[in-house]
């Protein structure tokens, strides 16, 4: 415990040269999600069963599309970090762990890309 200089401890840099990034990022994205997710839930609840024309008209407003894209980005980062922690908690085989962490990044990336593409296409009126 005491085998570390105060400066080193203050920097949060042990031998791993990293530390609280995930802790901080998970809370940063959580804070964004707390604002954006209820907005999206309200939007989707209002659009439930609506015609495509109504959905397009709603998403054509820049503020709506921007909020949705921001939510998808924040959500995807939050999902990736959260699932990474779960994988590291329960999967101890090195090979399986690396493969699952890779799959985690691809899955969250794919969800984000698909959702953002769809929001943009709807918003631009394609």
């Amino acid at each position, binding site marked *: 415990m005491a085998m570390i200089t105060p400066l080193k401890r203050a920097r949060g840099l042990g031998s791993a040269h990293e530390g609280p990034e995930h802790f901080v990022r998970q*809370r940063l994205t*959580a*804070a964004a*999600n*707390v604002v954006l*997710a*209820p907005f999206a*839930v309200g939007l*989707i*609840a*209002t659009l*439930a*069963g609506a*015609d*495509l024309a109504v*959905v*397009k008209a709603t998403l054509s407003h820049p503020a709506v599309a921007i909020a949705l894209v921001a939510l998808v980005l924040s*959500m*995807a980062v939050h*999902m990736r970090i*959260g*699932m990474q922690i*779960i994988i590291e908690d329960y999967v101890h085989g090195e090979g399986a762990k690396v493969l699952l962490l890779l799959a985690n990044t691809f899955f*969250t990336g794919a*969800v984000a890309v*698909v*959702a953002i*593409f*769809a*929001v943009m*296409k*709807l918003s631009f009126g*394609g």
Partner: protein
Amino acid sequence: MADASSEQPMRARPLSPHLQIYRPQINMVMSIFHRLTGVTLYFGSLLLAWWLLAAATGPDYFAFVNGLFATWPGMVVLVGYSWALIHHMLGGLRHFVWDTGTGLDIASVNILSWGTIVLSVLLTAGLWLFIAWQRGWVAPWL
């Protein structure tokens, strides 16, 4: 070191007690729920991406996907998805409180934990009442 460990058979090491040892307590159950709902939301994000992609694909496919979501099994999934989101969000807000170093005494922990589950059910019910009202599934006098 390497020789010693490869020659001697590994003795079973003592393990710290796991879940089945403890009597379930509300904060522990809500902690498990937080992780489970997180995993649910992880895969549930496919539903959101699918719905958006369906809308971006065209009117026919959008109507098809909306039709699937409007079936009873579809709605059970959506109610579960929305509850998971609300529960996970309330759990996250509780963690924000704890991050400040407050609410860590047992009485507050119990209140915050019970608050998560009770409020999540109430808010989910409210959300679906709104959707039911909005879609005209319930009589207007409700």
